[in-house]
């Protein structure tokens, strides 16, 4: 029969979307007690990730991660979400790991625990621990595998009658199908198609372009989508595709056909565009006819995004399209600008598609500023999407 009653740890809410904040509270500690609050997560590929902060309880025996300062650990200062964004592989893990959820139908499980002391906190069993769920998918979202007209991807449809605005979501040169951002966007009310595209062969550019046009049409033609409110979301290589799609595609061209209406209201988001592959950037950029949000990290070590962003701004200005462009540039932020509270990776292993060679790619960024950028940019992206795809009038005058 055990006698001692432990401290009380709570995480509120215990189930949340990945972009929602939580409050971690420890009560019933002795006053002035040094403790470590730690998060632990085992990824789908069986690696352990952790974050921790060192705290001291107040006179009533309480530690509030939202209010108190961490004195050390993987984050310092007042950081309500530090236990998530400062996660890194546990000591002894192999280098170059990256944390990404492949199965979005289940939540990310994170164990938050409180330990006695600061140094060597891991040597003892935790005083208390709770499990919290972080979801990419809100309840009621439908997930549908798409394999039609040669297009492969996954479609996420929000609950409710619709119709909804649509988004084509594209990742970068790593290839493969990553669903988590599309699932999260659907949780915010957009029919989102996570598109699987395996490499972008610039020689057969036009053929590839058709692939994306078809994908775009699948969204546009979906009975629950408002055809004049479809946008494109791209990261890294995906944004390059987005640019090209918006500029070159026949479906976005101005013309005397029904699709003319479509053109004015496509929204594009670029992230970290590298225009080296495009022979005549001005031709592409100048043809963009829709509101565009460009997000880049100033410490991006993967693409020359700062220079590129300047180029884009200049080209759009020259084409008289400057009013369509918004830019978010974040200092000390790297290439992989992910949804908020995702851990930061300065460098990870990456497989080059063509040679199958495994390298360590440097993405850049310093953890704290990068995490702030993720949180800030996501809020601004959602606001941008809400404004243009939800609130704006459905028919804009042609410029």
């Amino acid at each position: 029969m055990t006698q001692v009653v432990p401290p009380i740890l709570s995480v509120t809410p215990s189930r949340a979307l990945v972009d929602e904040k939580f409050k971690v509270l420890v009560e019933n500690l002795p006053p002035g007690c040094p403790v470590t609050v730690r998060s632990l997560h085992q990824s789908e590929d069986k690696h352990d990730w952790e974050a921790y902060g060192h705290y001291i309880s107040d006179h009533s025996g309480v530690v509030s991660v939202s209010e108190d300062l961490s004195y050390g650990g993987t984050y310092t200062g007042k950081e309500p979400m530090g236990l998530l964004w400062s996660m890194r592989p546990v000591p002894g893990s192999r280098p170059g790991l990256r944390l990404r959820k492949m199965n979005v139908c289940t939540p990310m499980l994170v164990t938050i625990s409180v330990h006695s002391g600061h140094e060597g906190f891991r040597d003892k069993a935790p005083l208390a621990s709770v499990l919290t769920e972080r979801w990419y998918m809100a309840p009621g979202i439908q997930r549908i595998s798409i394999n039609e007209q040669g297009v492969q991807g996954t479609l996420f449809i929000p609950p409710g009658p619709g119709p909804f605005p649509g988004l084509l979501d594209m990742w970068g040169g790593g290839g493969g199908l990553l669903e988590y951002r599309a699932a999260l966007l659907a949780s915010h009310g957009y029919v989102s198609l996570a598109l699987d595209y395996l490499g972008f062969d610039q020689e057969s550019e036009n053929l590839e372009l058709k692939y994306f046009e078809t994908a775009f049409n699948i969204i546009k033609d979906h009975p629950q989508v408002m055809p004049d409110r479809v946008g494109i979301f791209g990261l890294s290589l995906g944004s390059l595709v987005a640019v090209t799609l918006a500029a070159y595609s026949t479906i976005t061209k101005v013309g005397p056909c029904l699709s003319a209406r479509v053109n004015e209201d496509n929204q594009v988001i670029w992230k970290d565009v590298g225009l080296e592959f495009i022979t005549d950037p001005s031709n592409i950029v100048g043809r963009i006819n829709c509101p565009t949000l460009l997000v880049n990290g100033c410490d991006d070590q993967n693409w020359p995004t700062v220079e590129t962003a300047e180029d884009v701004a200049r080209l759009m200005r020259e084409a008289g399209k400057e009013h369509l462009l918004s830019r978010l540039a974040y200092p000390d932020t790297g290439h992989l600008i992910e949804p908020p509270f995702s851990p930061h990776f300065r460098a990870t292993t990456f497989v080059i598609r063509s040679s199958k060679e495994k390298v360590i790619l440097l993405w850049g960024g310093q953890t704290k500023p990068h995490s702030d950028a993720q949180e800030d940019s996501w809020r601004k992206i959602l606001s941008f999407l809400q404004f243009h795809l939800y609130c704006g009038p459905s028919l804009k005058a042609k410029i």
Partner: protein
Amino acid sequence: MDRKQCCVKLSVQPSRGLMDEKFIVLVQNALPGSQLTIRALHRCEDGHSWEAFGHYTADTIGTINVSDDPSIGGTYSGVEQMGLLWSFRPIPGSKPGLRMRKKNIQTPMEVTISVYQGHQTEGFADLVPLSGVVVERWYMAPGVRRIPVTEGGLTAALFLPSGPGPFPGLLDLWGGGGQLVEYRAALLASHGFASMAIDYLTAKITMETGKMVDNQYFETAYRVLQQHPQVCGSKIAMIGLSFGTSITLKMAVYSEVIKLSAAVCISGSHVQPVDGSVEEILRFFQKNGDKTRFSEKNEVIWRDLLLPIPTDPSLKVNVGRLQCPLLLVVGEDDQNWPAQESALDIKEMMARAGNSHLLTVLSYPNAGHLIEPPYTTHARSSTFKTIEIEEKVMCLWGGQMVEHSRAQEDAWKKILVFLRENLYGGRNPTSFSHL
């Protein structure tokens, strides 16, 4: 003019919450000044559909926030953040006497919340909403484990909070309807108490042998809980509702084995043959069956069976001998048990004995018998089958919906604080401030 609006955005935060957590329902992007109906729909496990709805007017920027804005009609009115849950009622055409209770607590209650154009009151099935979301409401927090208990002939379920423990323990008893009712224990475990829900009227052993359980059954439950490696054996409390109160008071005062750190008694009484077994107590109630009354709607009122409160000490648990803090929760419109009269008598007995510092009474005007966890649908009456009678009757529980729902919310918070103080120590728990 009723122009169809598009792009009305509805959000409920959190989309996955515990049953006792509040949520924020927000409508955005509606036409300023437009009339809208926000409706909740739930299909429960036995296939019945329930609905609740409020009538709102969008403000100058096209927003409705259910936490701040008043409903001017529907199943609830005024500023009621959680009205969409506690004002649930069966959809038109449902059979009478329904009560919403979840049996499988390992899955969430799913509620669809939608917004409709105009102030609608019926025919929702034929209307297309402007927007809709799905919300999950859970009795079990992540990491809470459910462990069936059959040791010592028990029919019980133990809910352990997540983490190493050790945790204070709780024995959870319901009333005369029997069955193993798990949801309150699951929710209490989600707040850090190792809670064991116990079936003591329709336990497997009773169904098989035809014999009712005796006092030893409860002592066995106590022992099993106490000896569990993740339970702090010196910190065990008991919570009972209705007939569960009778058992709780009896054990708290007379058991040599059960040493409680605290007791919570909801909607019950101390009136019972003091030396009686469970069976004898039930027979005592039955003996007074002729005091049953009926409402104008022919609903059964059983509150008089134990009235007047006897003066004979052999017919009342001697609460003057109680040695642990006691929280009594009373609905003043309880039509099933004379909870208010009993509470007054308990207070007097304890004052005379000098242990009234242990007593706290929460008495709620216009609350009925079934004081459940917050936002549980209020049932003023429902079909009920006790273990003694063969057919179902329509039982009057009492209570008015609004006051009863407020009572549930208030009582739950106070119960949690009471349990926290007596089982964990420490005051002013901040972690309940979001409830």
